[in-house]
């Protein structure tokens, strides 16, 4: 028997479900990235996390730079359209603030591995990594043979996080979740996890979902947390646009350890929650 999602504060949800040493996936492909949840994990100083994400983005840069993470599984680790994730690079190149083990894939492999996790299969299969050096360095990439044609196909172990955290546009009072637009791999990531935490822009009486909408029923979700603006500086379609200027500004903030730590102290450790964070960022810009 499945239990329904509990409506919790984000602080409570992270306290209850995210433990030191856990394997986490915070997904969101450019859109609906769960920034508020990432900040809360940083504030609660979780350690030794294995974090999984196709596109680490700024939020993993922050989690890595503040020492939450010991292992990263990913497929593209840059600041989109801007350049490097400097904290990720500093961890890989210089082990700062601590060594970071990386498990590196291509997008197609990660997508197949999440889908396998959602489907309860032990591995995902794709025509992938052909001629790439990635399999030389990642023992998670093996090859199998088609029993009918003999074709060689790549096999990747299913991703099964302890906790997946995603951000969505809406939930209803029972905890059913609705998202739309660039929905990425979030449904798969949520279904692959032991526990799914969903932050949402708003909790509404009725979802008013279109007929084949991307809905996660309450009984596959452990906790729903209302966090308006919780995907900033990423975006929530129908609510606010991507703050591309913030992404560009991050390059200078994260480039040096000092400027990064100053920023984190001021805007993440120095605030109570994501609402205060956004107010502080707004104030600094004004």
């Amino acid at each position, binding site marked *: 028997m499945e239990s329904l999602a509990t409506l919790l504060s984000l602080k409570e949800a992270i306290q209850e479900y995210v433990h030191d040493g856990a394997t986490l996936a915070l997904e969101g492909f450019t859109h609906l990235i769960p920034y508020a949840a990432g900040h809360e994990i940083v504030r609660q100083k979780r350690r030794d996390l294995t974090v999984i994400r196709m596109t680490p983005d700024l939020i993993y840069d922050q989690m890595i730079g503040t020492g939450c993470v010991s292992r990263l599984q990913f497929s593209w680790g840059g600041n989109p359209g801007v350049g490097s994730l400097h904290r990720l690079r500093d961890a890989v190149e210089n082990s700062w603030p601590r060594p970071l083990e990386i498990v590196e894939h291509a997008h197609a492999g990660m997508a197949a591995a999440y889908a396998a996790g959602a489907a309860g299969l032990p591995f995902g299969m794709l025509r992938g990594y052909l001629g790439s*050096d990635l399999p030389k360095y990642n023992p998670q990439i093996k090859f199998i043979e088609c029993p009918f044609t003999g074709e060689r196909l790549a096999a990747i172990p299913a991703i099964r996080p302890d906790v997946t955290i995603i951000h969505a546009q809406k939930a209803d009072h029972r905890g059913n979740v609705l998202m739309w*637009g660039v929905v990425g791999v979030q449904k798969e990531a949520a279904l692959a996890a032991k526990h799914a935490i969903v932050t949402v822009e708003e909790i509404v009486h009725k979802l008013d979902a279109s007929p084949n909408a991307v809905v996660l029923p309450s009984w596959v979700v452990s906790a729903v947390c209302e966090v308006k603006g919780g995907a900033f500086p990423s975006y929530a379609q129908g609510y606010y646009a*991507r703050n591309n200027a913030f992404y560009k500004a991050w390059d200078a903030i994260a480039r040096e350890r000092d400027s990064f730590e100053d920023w984190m102290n001021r805007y993440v450790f120095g605030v109570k929650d994501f609402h205060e964070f956004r107010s502080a960022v707004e104030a600094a810009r004004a």
Partner: protein
Amino acid sequence: MPETHYTADEMMTIAAARMLRNGTVCFVGIGLPSAAANVARLTHAPDVVLIYESGPIGTKPSVLPLSIGDGELAETAETVVSIPEMFAYWLQGGRIDFGFLGAAQIDRFANINTTVIGDYRGPKTRLPGAGGAPEIAASSKEVLITLRQNKRAFVPKLDFVTSGGHFDGGDARQRMGLPGKGPVAVITDLCIMTPDHATKELTLTSLHPGVTLEKVMESTGWPLKVSTHLAVTPEPAEVELSVLRDLNERTARAHAGQA
């Protein structure tokens, strides 16, 4: 190099745009590929179908996305599919005519590196990594590569093969089971190179206006083969330039506006 009324990057973008035939289905990356694909759509190829790996199919953005999944892409798309569906049904399914890639390093057979400079275990520079590139390179019917040309990028041997081009040449791709034809052109700020029909080694086929053969040679880390029919790339037409510049201006305004 003589003074021109356009930049080398503009020439590169427009040369790349011209490669996209009308009605083709293009898998577009961010940055220059996105600019080139949208210039094509707004000039000679109004029916080009643009697909971004984040999910939008048949998108018609009015400004260039900074990220691969900006809201503009979803809002103007015919539909938006999930990431697993995009990679399985649309890319691996063999539905992409042109895959458009950038690179940090490229070799003479158009294999590319976007992973590390130096040793993988102790890198000099850690780059963003593979993203969609290995499977875009494998499964698109044809691959276009654009990057700025210099000896740090055009190297005799890659530090890491992220995505396969023609491997060690000849029919290597086919033997290794990659479905698509592989790279059909490399477009830089200096010139256009295409693989030799038989050996698949990159061959200089067109110099951009005002660029000398010497300049290309000294920007390439191996003795570059030169076509016996070496052409000069037609200059950007006024309409191409104005479309590209309008697009870049709208984009700059849109991205700054949210700061």
